[in-house]
């Protein structure tokens, strides 16, 4: 087993909101009453059904309550075993699914406040991602600016399957705000379910939706590159979270090939897509969609032509690996160091700063 190196960063942790009522203290009177009087129960996304094997590793699943709801469990099961200095929390509470932008905004604010009180305040290693109500660009920018005042927020969080392709210009004020504040934008697996979860319609199964996440990251990367997000915002970094990465090399070959022939359609794409990915895009480590044979994974790393792309993650409490085998077999200590320490610190600028409440 490949050993971790202490002092790294876990870039994908999922603290769970026990129930919608947990957010009531963080809602104003109107929204509190809306939730209770209309009988709203919970915001659990189909992307992670509570009892699905993906949603929690068996030994991380508590006897009662949602996996990932207990700080003590996260400390013992994720933070301690890998000796990390920081853990970045990406809450996956399903606030993106509602259709009212006002309601989404209220829930996002409450969720971000809840994260501070119940997690960031209670363990100095923890950092947060700002969840935003993407249906309203103005409200999203306002929420970014509000939460960014707390230096423990290190990232903006969006889902990979939303209402529009992420490169669309309507979203750009969000990226401008993030770039201005030195925050990467994290794009996480999951869907608002406002569109069918595959490129060819609604599949039948949870496993199908989950496999489809990888394809969604591919089309989103095409959108971000083709629309010129990084031409306009060269200092913006985006992190693909729980995306898989073994699809990346052959995907880039294809994008490069077509870009060359249809360049005139998007003349602002003035660098090869591979260069844009190297400078602006990163990927969290889990899940590793590779065969058990380490030789294949080593070939894939060679195909990727960069050791700066991967950021260590456990994806706790999701079930992506067993025991402490978060790092693939046969990885050199140099590469472990890059993945666990160098690459995350280079990506998340705020990690170097002293945390302020």
């Amino acid at each position: 087993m490949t050993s971790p190196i202490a002092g790294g960063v876990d870039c994908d942790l999922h603290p769970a909101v026990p129930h919608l009522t947990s957010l009531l203290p963080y809602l104003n009177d109107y929204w509190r009453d809306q939730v209770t009087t209309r009988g709203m129960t919970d915001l659990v996304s189909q992307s992670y059904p509570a009892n699905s094997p993906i949603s929690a590793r068996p030994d991380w699943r508590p006897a009662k309550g949602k996996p990932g709801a207990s700080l003590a469990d996260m400390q013992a099961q994720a933070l301690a075993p890998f000796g990390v200095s920081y853990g970045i929390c990406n809450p996956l509470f399903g606030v993106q699914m509602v259709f009212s932008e006002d309601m989404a905004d209220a829930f996002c604010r409450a969720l971000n406040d809840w994260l501070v009180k119940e997690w960031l305040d209670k363990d100095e290693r923890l950092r947060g991602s700002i969840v935003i109500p993407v249906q309203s660009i103005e409200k999203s920018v306002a929420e970014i600016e509000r939460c960014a005042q707390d230096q423990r927020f290190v990232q903006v969080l969006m889902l990979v399957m939303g209402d529009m392709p992420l490169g669309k210009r309507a979203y750009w004020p969000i990226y401008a705000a993030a770039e201005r504040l030195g925050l990467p934008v994290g794009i996480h697996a999951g869907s608002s379910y406002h569109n069918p979860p595959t490129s060819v319609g609604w599949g039948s199964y949870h496993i199908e939706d989950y496999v489809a996440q990888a394809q969604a990251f591919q089309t989103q990367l095409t959108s971000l590159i083709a629309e010129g997000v990084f031409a306009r915002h060269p200092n913006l970094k985006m992190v693909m979270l729980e995306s898989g990465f073994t699809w990346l090399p052959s995907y880039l070959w294809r994008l490069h090939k077509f870009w060359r022939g249809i360049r005139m359609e998007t003349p602002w794409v003035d660098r090869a897509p591979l260069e844009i990915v190297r400078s602006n895009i990163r990927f969290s480590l889990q899940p590793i969609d590779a065969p058990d044979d380490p030789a294949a994974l080593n070939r894939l790393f060679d195909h990727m032509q960069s050791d700066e792309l991967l950021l260590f993650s456990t994806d706790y409490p999701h079930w992506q690996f067993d025991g402490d085998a978060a790092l693939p077999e046969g990885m050199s200590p140099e590469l472990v160091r890059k993945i666990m320490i160098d690459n995350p610190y280079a990506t998340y600028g705020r990690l170097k700063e002293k945390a302020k409440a």
Partner: protein
Amino acid sequence: MNMQFRDLPEQAPSVQAKTAIADCDIHPARATATELYPFLAKRWHEHLETYDRHQYQGMMDGPPYPKAQPNASRRDAYPPEGGPQGSSLSFMQQQHLDPNNVVLGVLNPLATGQGLRNHELAAAICSAINDWQIEKWTSKDSRLKGSIVVANEDGPTAAAEIRKRAGDKNFVQVLLLSRTVEPLGQRRYWPIYQAAEEVGLPVGVHAFGFGGNPITASGWPSFYMEEMVGHSQCQQAVLASLVLEGVLERHPTLKMIMIEAGFGWAPSLSWRLDKNWRRLRSEVPHVKRLPSEYIRDHIYWTTQPMEDPERRDHLFDVIDWVGWDKLLFATDYPHWDFDEPSRVLPPGVSDANREAFYLNNAKKLYGLA
């Protein structure tokens, strides 16, 4: 050769002795709007002239993502006698089949009845297209073989069309498009696979079509480039659906071909499917084996658009993972992203693999070995 510009008599290309190849993705076109009329009942002539075709996208003339070249085709492929690219057998022979020594050419007609919202019209046009393929193409050049085009959204009707053509040596496969109303593994399409397996034909799934769904899981992208790159993601979703709905489990002898969506994505998708099946197989008990085993046993890929990494050892890694016995050479003639046969495979390939790639896999799959 483009008559717009050429003012010299046509020069015959120097024909070297070239290796015989199979081209598993050729697109024959109609020269005129009425070319299909002899094969279509009269009521449909009037219908088409009045109401034309209604697809699952809004534009009546041309695609909402404009192509990179007119008719999405090579500008030098206009036949001298007129008509769009791909509409002349003699010119196809002269420009492509003869000089490139194509000994087997599989026809995949596009812009057919597939993807029409009027399902009765769809069925009529599909059947007419199949008759047209015989009359204009396969009966006139024995190198060419047709694909049975079916009104896929209506399973029983599609199955009937397949059974009607059973045993007809003019056809070597059934043809579907990748972007359909539902993912292709779903039960409304099951009669198609049932019939195809019954009559012993493989089913090809060709990129494109419109099924009424946005072409990404996050809505409609802006650019044609995104659509082109996106065929890879559509095909991945199709293959995942075919595996997870149990189509490949229930039809042990069915073969399927992923056409014009590349193949570089296949290893990563197989590994991802395997990993998640190990976790989540209780949701899909009808999927009895590892997804990668089904893919290994049932699936082929045409090569165009050919994967084009900077380093050929990277290409060879991917082909090793996919299998040298699983690739079917294709040019996509006359489309603009045509792969020139002599340029697609870098040096360093064994003779056996080269012959498999360019011809033998296709002959074996299509029963023409």
